[in-house]
């Protein structure tokens, strides 16, 4: 028999050869994810449900960028998600912005808030960091409750869907679906790139051993702040997209429970993994949608699943898969 033609160049134990580019199993996982969301609306799944999943998945990916890759637990991410939703809704409704401009405006707004809040919060660590982000997010909540343009308890309702770029019609759910799909995949790939970049490598070093990173001459606060702003902007992207999906911006999205929900999604899916937040968001939104008939029991069931996760598979769904297959996802 002929010897295998292309044996890996250096299969010997010690020598690493640099992992270059996206490993094959991740390319496959990515393809599965893209195909799923591209085909699901034609396979009978409700498109608004899928769009919500994608918005929350992107939100969770943004959050995971901080928690999973820098080790920062922000407990106020609803502020960027929800406020951005208000900004996009207001820009579209009151100023007649087209969707892409409204989204751009909202993302810029959440990045700015992220810059201000991040600059304050990163001065502290651990639980203090979490508490500062929570307190700042609560300020945003009360602002949204009181400010004249947000509609108080009613929120901003019947957000219009003007044509994208001024000429692509956005009336039907399926048309909005492709916009959300593009934003989600684009956002996901951006997170992937950030994590797998020279910058992302420094973030991981900071997460692993911050004093050592400092002693090597890294001004870690700069890196944390940039990561914070990127995370806030991506959370804002998710929130802005959601405003067009449900045609509503409301207090729910800016409330502290929403900050908790994104933590839950990320942990259930697997923090510090690329696909975990997507799986987590899918799981939680599915439960909320399809178990809705159980009413208040949904929360109890969610709590149960969360407990199960923490007790039985602490790494989250994708984290456990990664452990079992010894591959990173």
């Amino acid at each position, binding site marked *: 028999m002929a010897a295998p033609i292309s044996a890996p160049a250096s299969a010997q134990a010690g020598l690493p050869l640099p992992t270059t580019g996206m490993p094959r199993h991740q390319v496959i996982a990515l393809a599965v994810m893209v195909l799923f969301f591209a085909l699901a609306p034609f396979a009978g799944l409700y498109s608004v449900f899928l769009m919500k999943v994608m918005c929350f998945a992107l939100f969770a990916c943004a959050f995971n960028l901080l928690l999973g890759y820098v080790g920062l637990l922000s407990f106020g991410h609803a502020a960027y998600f929800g406020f951005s939703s208000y900004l996009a809704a207001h820009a579209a409704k009151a100023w007649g912005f087209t969707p892409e401009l409204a989204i751009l405006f909202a993302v810029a707004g959440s990045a700015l808030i992220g810059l201000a809040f991040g600059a304050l919060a990163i001065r502290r660590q651990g639980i203090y960091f979490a508490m500062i982000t929570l307190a700042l997010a609560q300020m945003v909540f009360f602002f949204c409750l009181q400010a004249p343009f947000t509609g108080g308890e009613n929120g901003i309702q019947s957000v219009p869907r003007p044509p994208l770029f001024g000429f692509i019609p956005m009336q039907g759910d399926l048309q909005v679906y492709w916009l959300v799909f593009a934003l989600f995949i684009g956002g996901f790939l951006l997170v992937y*790139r950030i994590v797998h970049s020279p910058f992302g490598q420094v973030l991981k070093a900071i997460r692993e051993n911050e*004093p050592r990173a400092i002693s090597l*001459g890294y001004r870690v606060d700069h890196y944390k702040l940039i990561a914070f702003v990127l995370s806030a902007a991506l959370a804002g992207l998710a929130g802005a997209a959601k405003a067009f999906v449900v045609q509503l911006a409301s207090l729910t999205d800016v409330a502290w429970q929403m900050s908790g929900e994104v933590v839950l999604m990320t942990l259930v899916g697997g923090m510090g993994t690329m696909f975990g937040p997507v799986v987590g968001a899918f799981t939680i939104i599915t439960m909320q949608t399809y178990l809705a008939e159980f009413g208040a029991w949904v929360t109890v069931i969610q709590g149960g699943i969360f407990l199960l996760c923490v007790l039985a598979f602490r790494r989250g769904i994708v984290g456990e898969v990664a452990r079992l297959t010894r591959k990173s996802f």
Partner: protein
Amino acid sequence: MTADYILETRGLTKEFKGFTAVNQVDLKVRRGTIHALIGPNGAGKTTCFNLLTKFLQPTRGAISYNGRDITRMKPADVARLGLIRSFQISAVFPHLTVLENVRIALQRSRGASFDFWRSDTALDSFNERALELIEWVGLSDYAGSVAVEMPYGRKRALEIATTLALEPEMMLLDEPTAGMGHEDIDRIVQLVKRVSAGRTVLMVEHNLSVVSTLCETITVLTRGQVLAEGDYQSVSTNPEVIQAYMGTAHG
């Protein structure tokens, strides 16, 4: 004497609540030497280290490095001047590979650290230099291993490779041989000796045989104060030192 000192402190003092950990320390480290800081537990050695590398702010006193006042600088900026420290517990990035650990340091000194839009394949350009350093500290067989899975002594070697990647002018080693067996100690001693060529090393060390083989100058600290200074011969025969530090061990 017209010796050239790379690092000097004047009246360096650190007070914690109601307790003076470092008290009026005047330390002078001569360029190109290996200098040891020894003393019994709680003598203030590690606090002293943290002050020198700015991980702690001194209460009083001044520190100058290469003739430059660094008393109020931030730790990352001190590192950028070429004064790099190690830690008592091994300072590696545990879940990164050996190669990645060294690349983190190379990346800092050679740029590209803020590029979040570029692929990390850009980092492969550091591989050659990283592997050179890894080989230099004798870790070639481990290059692909995850740091946390290596034996303790190897982690210290990795730490040194990472530090060397920055080509520091001065290295501060906090108990480089703590918790090691004989074989590992010998390896690290050889490594420190090689590392010290062309640079200055200040180390905290408990193991006196290590100190006597490596260090030209020894400063003895007790209760935050300098008790004696000199070469091993003069320090080890100093009656005050014997009494305060070595106790009856030499008796």
